[in-house]
C-alpha cells in the first residue's frame, strides 16, 4: 500500500475542522487493512492491486459538460464535483455545500462507518469524498425524480462521490444515478450512497453504469429501512473495465420490503462483480432479488448475493433469482447465492442458472421466418429487457431502453423499434 497517495488526496479535500478530523479517522481506519485482496472471501474474484500502479490523484478540475436530457430534476457532476444543480430542485442539493448541516452531521457515515468488519472502500470514501448528492424529503412531500449524472474526464483521477438520501416517514422519491466518462479513459470512480428510509417511505433507485471501458468503478449502496418502508433498486451495469458494485440493505423495521433487480453485461474484457447483502433484522420483512447477467467476449460477471435472516426475524420472506447467459468460450460467470437463516418460520429460496439461449426458442422463432442471428438477438433483448419490465414505470423504462439497446451485443437495432 502507498499511504502517501491517499494522504496527498486528503490534502485536496475541504471541510470544517470537525469534518477534517473525521476524514482523518476514516483514512487511518483504511490504513489498518488497506485495499481488499482476493484473499478476502468477499473479494475472491476481484483484484484491485492494479489501482495503486496507476498515477492516482485527486481531480484538478470540475469540468462542466453537456448531458443528455433527463425526465426529471438533474444534478450534474463532473470529476467528482457538482457542476450544475437544477434550479427547480427543492429536495436535491450538493452534499459538500451542506456538509455541516445538522441533518448531514446526523446521518452521514451512520451506515458506511459502522459496517461489520469494516469496509476499506467505504473508509477511503469517507476520508476523501469530494461531493455528491444530498436528497432530503421531509414529511408530507413527494419528490420529483432526481437524476444524478456524473461524467469523468480526467485520466487517473480518483473520484470519490458520496450521496446521502434521507426520506422521512411516508415520503416517496425516485433517484437515478447515471455514471459516464470519456471513452477509454482510465480513472477510478469510488462512490458511496447512504440511504435512510423512514417509516412507510418508498424509494425507487436506478443505477446506470456506463463508465469508460478503461475505468474502475467501485460503488457501495447502503440502505437502512424502517417499518413498512419499501426500497426498489434496478441496476443496469454495463460500464467500466473493472466494476464492483455492493448493495447492502438492512430491513430493520417490521413490514419493510426491498426489491433488488439488476442486469449486467460483461462484454469485451469487462469484469463486473456484484454483491448484494440483505439483512432481515425484523419480523415480517420481505426481500426479492431478480438478477440477470450476460457474459461474452472475454467478459467476466460475478454475482454474489447473501441473505441473512437474523434470530427472531420470523416470517421473513426472501427470494433470490440469478439467471445468466454465457455466450463465448473466453467469458466466465461466477455465482454465489447464499442464504444464512437463524429463524425457523421463514420462506427463503434461491435459484441460479448459467447457460445459453434456449435453442428450442431459437427454432420456434426461425420457424416463423426469422433468421437465426436475429432470433438470438431478439431472445437476448427479451432476456435483458425483462429487467426493465420489473420497474413498472414507463417513463423510466423508456429512458433506460436505448441505453440497454446500446449495450447489448449482437443486437439488431430494428428489432427494438
Amino acid at each position, binding site marked *: 500500500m502507498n499511504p502517501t497517495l491517499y494522504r496527498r488526496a486528503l490534502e485536496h479535500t475541504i471541510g470544517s475542522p470537525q469534518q477534517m478530523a473525521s476524514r482523518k479517522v476514516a483514512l487511518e481506519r483504511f490504513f489498518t487493512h488497506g485495499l481488499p485482496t482476493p484473499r478476502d472471501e468477499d473479494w475472491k474474484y476481484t483484484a484491485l492491486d492494479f489501482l495503486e500502479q496507476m498515477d492516482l490523484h485527486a481531480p484538478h478540475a470540475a469540468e462542466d459538460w453537456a448531458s443528455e436530457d433527463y425526465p426529471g430534476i438533474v444534478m450534474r457532476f463532473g470529476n467528482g464535483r457538482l457542476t450544475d444543480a437544477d434550479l427547480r430542485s427543492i429536495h436535491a442539493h450538493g452534499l459538500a455545500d451542506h456538509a455541516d448541516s445538522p441533518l448531514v452531521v446526523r446521518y452521514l457515515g451512520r451506515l458506511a462507518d459502522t459496517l461489520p468488519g469494516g469496509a476499506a472502500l467505504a473508509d477511503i470514501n469517507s476520508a476523501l469524498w469530494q461531493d455528491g448528492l444530498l436528497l432530503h424529503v421531509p414529511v408530507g412531500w413527494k419528490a420529483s425524480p432526481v437524476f444524478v449524472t456524473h461524467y469523468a474526464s480526467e485520466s487517473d483521477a480518483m473520484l470519490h462521490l458520496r450521496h446521502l438520501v434521507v426520506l422521512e416517514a411516508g415520503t416517496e422519491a425516485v433517484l437515478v444515478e447515471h455514471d459516464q466518462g470519456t471513452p477509454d479513459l482510465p480513472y477510478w470512480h469510488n462512490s458511496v450512497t447512504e440511504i435512510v428510509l423512514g417509516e412507510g417511505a418508498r424509494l425507487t433507485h436506478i443505477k446506470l453504469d456506463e463508465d469508460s471501458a478503461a475505468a474502475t468503478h467501485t460503488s457501495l449502496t447502503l440502505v437502512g429501512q424502517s417499518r413498512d418502508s419499501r426500497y426498489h433498486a434496478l441496476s443496469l451495469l454495463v460500464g467500466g473495465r473493472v466494476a464492483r458494485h455492493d448493495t447492502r440493505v438492512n430491513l430493520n423495521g417490521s413490514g419493510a420490503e426491498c426489491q433488488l433487480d439488476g442486469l449486467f453485461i460483461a462484454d469485451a474484457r469487462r469484469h463486473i462483480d456484484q454483491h448484494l447483502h440483505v439483512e432481515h433484522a425484523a419480523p415480517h420483512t420481505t426481500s426479492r432479488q431478480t438478477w440477470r447477467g450476460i457474459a461474452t467476449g472475454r467478459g467476466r460477471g460475478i454475482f454474489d448475493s447473501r441473505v441473512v435472516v437474523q434470530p427472531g426475524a420470523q416470517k421473513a420472506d426472501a427470494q433470490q433469482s440469478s439467471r445468466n447467459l454465457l455466450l463465448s468460450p473466453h467469458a466466465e460467470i461466477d455465482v454465489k447465492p447464499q442464504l444464512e437463516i437463524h429463524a425457523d418460520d421463514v420462506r427463503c429460496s434461491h435459484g441460479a442458472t448459467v447457460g445459453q439461449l434456449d435453442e428450442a426458442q431459437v*427454432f*420456434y422463432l426461425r*420457424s*416463423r421466418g426469422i433468421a437465426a442471428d436475429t432470433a438470438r438477438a431478439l431472445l437476448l433483448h*427479451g*432476456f435483458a429487457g425483462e429487467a426493465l419490465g420489473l420497474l413498472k414505470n414507463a417513463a423510466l423504462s423508456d429512458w433506460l431502453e436505448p441505453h440497454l439497446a446500446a449495450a447489448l451485443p449482437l443486437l439488431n437495432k430494428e*428489432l427494438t423499434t
Partner: protein
Amino acid sequence: MLEIRNLHVSIGDRPILAGIDLDVKAGEVHAIMGPNGSGKSTLAQVLAGREGYAVTAGSVRYLDRDLVGQDLLALAPEQRARAGIFLAFQYPLEIPGVANVQLLRSALNSVRLQRGESELDAMDFLDTVKSKLALLDMDESFLYRAVNEGFSGGEKKRNEILQMAVLEPRLAILDETDSGLDIDALKTVAHGVNALKHPERAVILVTHYQRLLNYIVPDHVHVLAGGRIVRSGDAGLALELEDRGYGWLIPESGSLEEMRP
C-alpha cells in the same frame, strides 16, 4: 405442392419414421392420424426443420413458385417459413421478454421481404394484425404480452393460429392443435383455419382424434402407425377410426423395433 418419398427418420439410433410417402396438392386438406408414438409429430417437426432428427433416407420436395422441386430438407427453418411453410406447434414455446407483436412483426416482414413485398410500417402492420385478431376472437392486449408466457393452453393454440393467419402460409401443418382445447376454443381455432382455406393453400392436420375433423373437413385421411402410413382414405376413414379405434389397422407384429433389419 409437397411430395414426400420414402422418408426415414431416426432420433439417435432409434428409427421413428420408416418410409413415408405422401403427396399434398394445393387446395387440399390432409389429416394425419395415428396412435401415440406413431411418428405423427416427428413428421411435422421434420417438415419444419427441427434439429435433432436424422433423415436416414428419402426426400421431401416442396413445389412452390420460387422453390420448384427444391429439396425441402436442405433448407434452414427460417427459409422454409419464408417459403410459406408454417408449423403450428403442439407445445408452443414461452418466450419471456419478447412481446407477441415483436415476433409477429419481425416474422411478417421477413416473409414479405422473401416474397418481394415491402415491409409494413407500424400502422399498416397493426391494421393487418387487428383484422386477424378479430377472426380469432382475441383481444388486442394479446399483442403486448410476452410470447405465450402465462397463456392458458387454449390461448397458446389460438396464438399459433393468429401467427398463421398473419403469415398467410401456403402449407400449414397443425400439430395436435386440437389437444387440450374445449369445444368453444376448438370451434374458434377451426374457424381460423377454415378462413384461411384457399385453392393455392394446403393444410396438414396432425391429430389423434377425429373431433377436429368435424369442423375442418379433410379431403384425405392417412393413418400413421409404426412409422408408416398404413391406410389412406377420405373423411369417412376418420369416422371409422372414431368407431373402431386404431387397433384393427396395426399389424400384430407392427412394432417398429421388430421392423429393424
